[in-house]
């Protein structure tokens, strides 16, 4: 068998090994470098940028889409996508708001029933999880392409949102303190949403890198058939991941509602774009099997810093649409180029 080893040795050139190992991390490093570079340039250009309060501002904004992006990372690693998260943000925000004391709206549904804040939040999270669960169910059982299935549910959930609110915003008169704490409060000077975001990033990083479920997520995205033939429960894992994302989108919706002190039908619109952009910028491949939650953290901060800079420079919200789209296009193009390089 020693001759075997010798023969095989010819196949893989030794010098490539070090680089090969680096390759995976290069994408993470690259996105990190981009972020740091961006921060440095912006600090030089605009003194307003480099301040603790501005960074807190960025973090507060990023936290909401970042929570979604963290969950989206796992979905994308399984080779899927979820376009319905923006609608889920809106629906869960409205449902939760309606259950919280002092909320009011012109819609009949909304004023009917009140719960203590923790219970209202739980109901909201359950609604988000249910949407994610149904997405996962449709995708695994009918084998429809995930983007198509979740495009359908994006519209459907938006419809539910209108049905529930009658198109009217849900407001508070005034907002209870414990609900306000979720989006507007702070602990040790750090806004609550940022804490929540931090906890979720750590938890999802741990799940993805340190647990058998996480390993299954990577395996399924890398090669679903091999994963199945290794005894992994492919469908169950996928449903779990979509459910988790639904839950996180719901959580983002609750935080957003608390922060804006209002649940409207436009809440969450376009968040799927920001989350997907963040994930892809963070080096997670849309093809599946590769990526990391930490990368997505860097990615959403990159998007957040760009948006923040546009605000600082007084760019209109209209331009921001264009920029968000361009950033997504750029991110997936880089992913495409990286894939090409890997292939050769």
């Amino acid at each position, binding site marked *: 068998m020693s001759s075997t080893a010798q023969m095989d040795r010819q196949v893989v050139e030794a010098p490539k090994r070090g680089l090969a190992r680096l390759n995976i991390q290069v994408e993470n490093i690259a996105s990190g470098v981009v972020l740091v570079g961006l921060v440095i340039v912006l600090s030089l250009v605009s003194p307003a940028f480099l301040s603790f309060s501005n960074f807190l501002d960025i973090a507060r904004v990023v936290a909401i889409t970042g929570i979604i992006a963290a969950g989206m990372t796992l979905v994308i690693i399984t080779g899927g996508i979820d376009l319905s998260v923006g609608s889920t943000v809106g629906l869960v925000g409205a449902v939760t708001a309606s259950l919280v004391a002092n909320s009011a709206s012109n819609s009949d549904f909304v004023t009917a029933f009140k719960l203590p804040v923790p219970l209202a939040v739980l109901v909201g999270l359950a609604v988000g999880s249910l949407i994610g669960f149904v997405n996962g169910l449709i995708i695994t059982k009918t084998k429809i392409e995930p983007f198509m299935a979740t495009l359908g549910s994006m519209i459907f959930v*938006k*419809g539910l949102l209108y*049905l529930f609110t009658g198109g009217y915003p849900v407001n508070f008169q005034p907002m209870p303190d414990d609900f306000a704490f979720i989006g507007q409060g702070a602990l040790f000077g750090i806004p609550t949403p940022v804490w929540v975001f931090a906890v979720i990033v750590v938890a999802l990083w741990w799940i993805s890198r340190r647990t058998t479920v996480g390993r299954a997520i990577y395996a399924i995205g890398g090669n679903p058939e091999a994963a199945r033939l290794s005894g992994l429960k492919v469908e169950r894992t996928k449903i779990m991941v979509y459910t988790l994302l639904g839950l996180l989108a719901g959580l983002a919706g609750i935080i957003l509602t608390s922060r804006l002190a209002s649940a409207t039908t436009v809440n969450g619109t376009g968040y799927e774009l920001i989350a997907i952009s963040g994930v*892809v910028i963070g080096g997670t491949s*849309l093809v599946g099997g590769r990526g990391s939650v930490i990368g997505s953290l860097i990615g959403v901060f990159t998007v957040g810093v760009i948006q923040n800079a546009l605000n600082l420079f007084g760019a*209109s919200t209209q*331009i921001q649409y*264009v920029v968000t*789209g361009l950033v*997504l296009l750029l991110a997936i193009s880089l992913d495409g180029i990286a894939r090409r390089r890997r292939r050769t």
Partner: protein
Amino acid sequence: MSSLLARIPGRQRESGAAGMRRLPLQGQQLALVVLIALLAAVFTSQSPEFLSTGSVENLLRGASMFGIVGLGLTIVIISTGSIGGIDLSVGSMMALGGAIGAGLLGTAFTAANPVKLPAALSVLIALVVTGLLGALSGLLISLLKLAPFAVTLGMMSVARGLTYVMIAWAIGSSNTAGITFSDPLFDWFGLTNYGPIPAITVLFLVLAALIAFVLKATAFGRSLFVLGGNAENARLAGINVRRTIVIVFAISGLLAGLGGLILTGRLSSASPLAATGYELEVIMVAVIGGTSLAGGRGSILGTVLAAILVSEINTGLDMMNVPSFNQYLIKGTILVLAVVLDKVYQARSSRKLAVQSA
């Protein structure tokens, strides 16, 4: 040789069934016609004025608008379905087409823009811009082998943003008001009838016939089916894959721009929120029309019929006073059902192929 052929069981029977071969597609189109008639009966029973001239005219305008955009998407899916071909940017492209067309007009009421062009020229520019943006999507997809849904999702956002920018520039203010205007060419898009038939319906049918002809009778049209069936085959058959993908996405962008001009003509205004969510209707038109999301298969007649069906659903629900947002629920469900049916059909036909090759 012929005796050998006869010895292989089952073959003769299959060859003998040549006449039946086109039935499945015809069956699907027949089903669409039946469905259109059935829905018409239901809607009429609920609200008798469904069959009034005004309502039918409205239905035809909607069908023509969605149908024209749907023609583009049909071509995209037929030719690139095998690589997941789809164009999610059509709704935003419609908005952008309308915004450019109206924004460059000399007759816009609120126009602050220094450039004021004749209607024909502004329409032309609108079509060129949306066509070019479509081509850009196609270029990214073919050059970097990116997932079409992701590229066109990004393009959806870019086009929507450009719509805002265009309108803000045209009315000299960044509030989200629209451009209102009056123009004979846009009236032709939105108001003119030839007898009982809206002008744009004639335009739609002419375009449909033209595209059907191109698909059936030209070398380029046939190459789309080859590409959609199997990209590697297409390359071996000497088809320029990259160029073809760019062209079909350009056509889709251009036709979406045209659809947006029609929408603008119907409303006599261009709003930054116009056509939001219309990609849903357009995808419904293509998929219900029998275009397989897997690529390589589809028919223009199906797309035309599906456009009528989808517009009929819109019109009927409006007349029954179903709030427009509840229509989201119905349409989201229909879309998923249509896609599931396509999947079932694909699975059945591939199983059939598999059994035959076993």
